[in-house]
């Protein structure tokens, strides 16, 4: 569906996108994750034909975006990282206007606008001016506007940045609904949880380069990690930590508080063996939970970008 080959974008001496290649399959949700300044927006702007690349190729549905930009734009829908509709116009008029830009006649665009307002639960506010909408409503209407001409591919640049939790959840549900309807979706974001919840495949982008690409599972398996088990017990674990480490060579146990500990080892220790050890010591185990690395851990390990940076950006975006 989308093919990118050796895509590069340079602004004078600065390389924003550095020789990236990727493929997005039909009907999948693909997420491009990276901190601010990673090159995500530059990449999406070249894919939608807003900027010319310095080098490389982009095809969408077999159409060369660089040479046949206007043709490619008929099959794509674009949601910019800002809700960029017209403040003075009503929600309904904004949708109709966007339909007109794609050459839809009056009857077609009015019918589709009504459908979209209903689908996005905005039908009660369709006659209100865009400027009177809340941030979440603005975002939803901006997504609806990108769907007016029934695009095969939808580009979403930071779809939930700066909006409330409830609106974010609704938008995520709408994105999944669109995927079920067969739309191919390309998302750029710096929200790790968002890509983990939505995307079939993810690419990590840092300093203009794609450092890893795959499904969540593939990315998890691409890094080596220690096996960890979290235990909640009825006695202070500090008293038997040394004995445990002696019994299971290569393991380390750390007491988290008076009733819990985390056991870590390079090689996986069967849970039954751990439970037997505690039984022998007449310690009751209330809960045993295996700890897996999160996508955040994988991101940090593969990109060397601290997740705190992404979290800070998320907070900044939410405040705006």
């Amino acid at each position, binding site marked *: 569906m989308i093919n990118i080959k050796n895509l590069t974008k340079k602004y004078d001496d600065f390389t924003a996108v550095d020789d990236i290649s990727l493929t997005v399959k039909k009907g999948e949700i693909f997420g491009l994750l990276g901190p601010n300044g990673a090159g995500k927006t530059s990449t999406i702007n070249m894919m939608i034909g807003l*900027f010319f690349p310095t080098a490389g190729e982009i095809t969408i549905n077999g159409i060369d975006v660089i040479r046949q930009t*206007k043709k490619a734009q*008929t099959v794509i829908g*674009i949601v910019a990282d800002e809700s960029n509709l*017209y403040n*003075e*116009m009503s929600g309904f008029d904004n949708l109709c*206007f966007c339909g007109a830009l*794609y*050459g839809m006649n009056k009857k077609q665009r009015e019918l589709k606008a009504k459908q979209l307002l209903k689908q996005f639960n905005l039908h009660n506010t369709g006659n209100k001016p865009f400027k009177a909408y809340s941030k979440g409503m603005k975002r939803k209407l901006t997504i609806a506007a990108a769907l007016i001409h029934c695009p095969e591919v939808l580009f979403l640049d930071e779809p939930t940045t700066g909006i409330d939790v409830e609106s974010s959840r609704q938008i995520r549900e709408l994105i999944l609904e669109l995927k079920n309807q067969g739309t191919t979706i390309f998302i750029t974001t710096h929200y790790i949880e968002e890509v983990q919840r939505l995307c079939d495949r993810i690419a990590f982008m840092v300093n203009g380069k794609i450092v890893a690409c795959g499904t969540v599972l593939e990315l998890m398996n691409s890094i080596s990690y220690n096996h960890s088990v979290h235990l909640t017990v009825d006695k202070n674990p500090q008293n038997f930590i040394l004995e445990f480490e002696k019994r299971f060579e290569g393991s380390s146990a750390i007491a988290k508080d008076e009733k819990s500990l985390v056991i870590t080892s390079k090689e996986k220790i069967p849970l039954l063996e751990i439970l037997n050890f505690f039984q022998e010591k007449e310690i009751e185990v209330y809960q045993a939970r295996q700890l897996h690395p999160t996508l955040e851990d994988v991101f940090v390990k593969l990109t060397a970008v601290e997740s705190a940076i992404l979290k800070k950006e998320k907070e900044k975006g939410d405040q705006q």
Partner: protein
Amino acid sequence: MKNLIAFFNILKKDINNYYLKPPNISWGIIFPLSWTLMQLLRCPDSNILELLPGLISTSVLFGTTSMLAVTITFERSGRSFERLLLAPISLNTLMLAKITGTILFGIFNAFVPVIFAGFFIDLSGVNWLMVFAVVFLIAVTSSLMGLLVAVSVEQVFEAQTLSNFFRFPMLFLCGLFIPVSNLPLFLRIVSYCIPLTYGADLLKGAINNNNILSEKLSFSMLIIFSIALFIISRYNIEKNKSK
């Protein structure tokens, strides 16, 4: 057909969103009226017919350049202009749609002093067909200059500053206040590089029959300026994509 639908809807949107707003309508009426009254108060005995070419030119020039430079810069800062650039319509259609609203606004501006003058003097000797054609061409060239400014700056205040940078010199060099023949040689050359010089001269001919340049030359120059400014504006928008 698709381009035509997009063209009319962009035009309709601009007229509703910008040009038909009360502040703009009042500005479009008050500004030319103020110029007319200023001239009449300064020289109460002056012939209104003599003043009319200057008042028309000034009204069109200020109306069109201000409106387009401000509306496009405003849309660019809110990123709604990006929406138009990303639509599957040709850049020529988009540019024509954007300047058509301004041209109509400029024509409306031009006829405010004419209507005002109609209450005081007999305008039956005026070649109206010629006036309309010239007003249209001045509006086209001025709108395109406004477009050129709009795509070169980021903020509305920058657009206003840059517009004034060429608007006021143009006004004093186009032969409306000081005859071009009285200007020093260097400024005379500059004057003939300004589209308004040809427009103002044609208006003088159409209203008072005292044009200096040939009508053919002036019309040709205005058309050449229109085409050149359109090409330069188009190039500038395309260039922004490569940046």
